[in-house]
């Protein structure tokens, strides 16, 4: 997808001031996720699970080539086509070939953040293919023409009433339709799509190397339909999704579901190991299975010794849910497919720091995300690494650089420091407000009073 992160502040401001209901919807939904997550982990040893998950993921990433080739071999044995795609254009070419070979006119899609990252829908539509998002949340934002606002809940920024309006306009449901009625309307339309589409597209939560199994977690059943009803299934799998052993999978399924929605495990888990009718594979299912192993910047991120740990991410969204910065705006402010704390650390790695600034600075450094990550990604530390690099590459503002140089000059000379403090106390507020940093402080806040004696002065007078 296109990256619009540079406008972060302007987008955030406009969301907060012009659509305050977004802040309310996102805050309410994320708080609910957080509560459910806490309940889900209350019944097990979270620390043990995350420590184990961290180590399995780190091991897989540091032996990535071997495990990917193992997965490929298992899949090919069962008749799947395995493609290696370095860039989004490579993925597009693979789809173009499949679409042309099979005369594909309709595609049903399971929710896949990777497909958003690759701008797959606009590409397919450009090929004249009709694309149906079949996850209800994705379907809603597809109708609205918006990108997802959350990794797990793409329409988290929308209220029930927003959905009523768009369904009323597009599907003719009553303006005051119940949630059940809305789901029924979507179901009717999507059932027809499932039965007529030639191609189903999914992502992949995990890819087990030992068995060549793609695991998919969902709650609606649409993924199972998308991957089994159409004649062809294409699974897009980020190369970082690999797990070494079959025995690893059950724990990752639990950790991911607990972290994402607080469920013990997703309502549906689909395990796909080959096309239908294949020897030793699936008794039924699509005639053709294509697995596209997607790099799109991941190898470069993996090779970066300071930030590679971000690739452990299982896309549970727990760091978004707990993030007080994310809660004020939802995901659209970030201008990048992955929002929130994790987006701000993988974005610079996948598409470049210059393109994703100022996302690493869109954090108050509160550290809440580090506490909830099920694979222990040190997100605050990684944010700081990207901040350092932004400074080193001269990408931060001159005002900030000058201000911090002045502070450093004064703070390493205690006489200057004391003198500067006294000066500040003498300056009237209207003068102080002309300094850029203080001007921005006075957006929404009164400036603090600096007219009393400093502690130094009190100490010199003697404290009784």
């Amino acid at each position, binding site marked *: 997808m296109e990256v619009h992160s540079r406008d972060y502040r302007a987008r955030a401001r406009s969301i907060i001031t012009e659509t305050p209901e977004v*802040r309310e919807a996102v805050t309410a939904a994320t708080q609910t996720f957080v509560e459910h997550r806490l309940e889900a982990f209350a019944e097990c040893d979270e620390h043990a699970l995350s420590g184990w998950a961290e180590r399995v993921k780190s091991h897989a990433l540091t032996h990535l080539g071997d495990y990917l080739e193992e997965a490929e071999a298992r899949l090919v044995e069962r008749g799947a086509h395995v493609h290696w795609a370095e860039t989004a254009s490579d993925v597009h070419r693979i789809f173009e070939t499949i679409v042309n070979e099979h005369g594909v006119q309709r595609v049903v899609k399971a929710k896949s953040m990777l497909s958003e990252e690759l701008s797959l829908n606009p590409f397919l539509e450009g090929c004249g293919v009709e694309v149906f998002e079949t996850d209800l949340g994705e379907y809603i934002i597809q109708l609205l023409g918006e990108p997802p606002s959350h990794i797990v809940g793409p329409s988290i920024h929308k209220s029930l009433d927003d959905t009523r309006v768009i369904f009323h306009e597009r599907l003719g449901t009553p303006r005051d339709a119940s949630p059940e009625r809305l789901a029924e309307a979507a179901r009717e339309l999507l059932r027809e799509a499932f039965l007529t589409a030639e191609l189903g597209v999914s992502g992949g939560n995990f890819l087990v190397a030992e068995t060549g199994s793609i695991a998919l977690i969902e709650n609606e059943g649409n993924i199972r339909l998308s991957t089994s009803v159409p004649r062809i299934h294409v699974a897009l799998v980020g190369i970082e999704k690999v797990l070494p052993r079959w025995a690893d999978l059950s724990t990752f399924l639990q950790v991911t579901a607990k972290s994402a929605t607080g469920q013990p495990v997703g309502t549906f888990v689909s395990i796909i190991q080959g096309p239908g009718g294949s020897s030793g594979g699936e008794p039924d299912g699509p005639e053709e299975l294509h697995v596209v192993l997607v790099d799109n910047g991941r190898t470069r991120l993996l090779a970066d010794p300071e930030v590679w740990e971000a690739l452990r991410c299982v896309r549970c969204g727990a760091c978004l849910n707990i993030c007080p910065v994310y809660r*004020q705006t939802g995901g659209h402010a970030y201008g990048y497919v992955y929002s929130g704390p994790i987006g701000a650390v993988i974005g610079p790695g996948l598409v470049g720091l210059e393109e994703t600034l100022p996302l690493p600075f869109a954090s108050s*450094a509160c550290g809440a995300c580090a506490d909830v990550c099920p694979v222990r990604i040190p997100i605050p530390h990684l944010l700081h690494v990207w901040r350092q690099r932004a*400074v080193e590459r001269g990408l*931060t503002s001159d005002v900030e650089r000058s201000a911090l140089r002045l*502070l450093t000059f004064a703070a390493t000379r205690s006489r200057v420091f004391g003198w500067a403090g006294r000066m500040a106390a003498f300056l009237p507020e209207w003068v102080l407000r002309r300094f850029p940093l203080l001007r921005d*402080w006075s*957006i929404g*806040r009164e400036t603090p009073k*600096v007219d009393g004696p400093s502690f130094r002065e009190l100490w010199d007078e003697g404290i009784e």
Partner: protein
Amino acid sequence: MRVSLFVTCLGDRFFADAAADAVRLLRSLDVEVDFPKNQTCCGQPAWNAGHVPQARQMATHTAAVFADADYVVLPSGSCTAMLRHTYPRLLESSAVAERSYELAEFLVDVLGVTELGRGLEGRRLAYHHGCHALRELGVEEQPVRLLESAGAALVPWEMDQECCGFGGLFSVKTPEVSVAMADRKLDTLPDVETVVSADGGCLLHLDGRARRRGKPIRFQSLASALWEARDGGA
């Protein structure tokens, strides 16, 4: 026992009375307080914004200032976290880190104080946990216990552990989001007379926002609240 007070730059300029209260409190507990006059800023503003060489210069200065201190006590959670967790990385020495304590942490964990006095009898307070005190220092129970043992009623606040939105330069680089975060804190605040916190940055930010909105809420430094607990509010 002798401690060196690191008043911090915000403490020196904006919370001078609270820092003086910290001195009174420590002296009342038979602790000798020293104030090295050449202390300045710990370097956290530069560190948080990614300006590492500047942060290192300030850390070097501060470490030299407190080189001979038995204990460094700070009326600030985030500056303590800077000394404890960041200085070892910047300076390749954990000498200052090991001897630095946030005020309430020092009182409870080092001095073993369980009760300061009953000076907060009948007061209704909300406590804002600064993020770095809470998550980096693990200071959660100490201030709460000291305030409650002085008779204060700490009113439950669902957002008491959520970031207020200050975040150092974050507050001026992304002011609209920063202010929205403060609003979430203020809008969920229970009916209390005073909000207490160990962190000056949080207090300036929340107080600045509350005043802009015309909300009559009193914000108080933990050091002052603890001295009130000790001194009976006289």
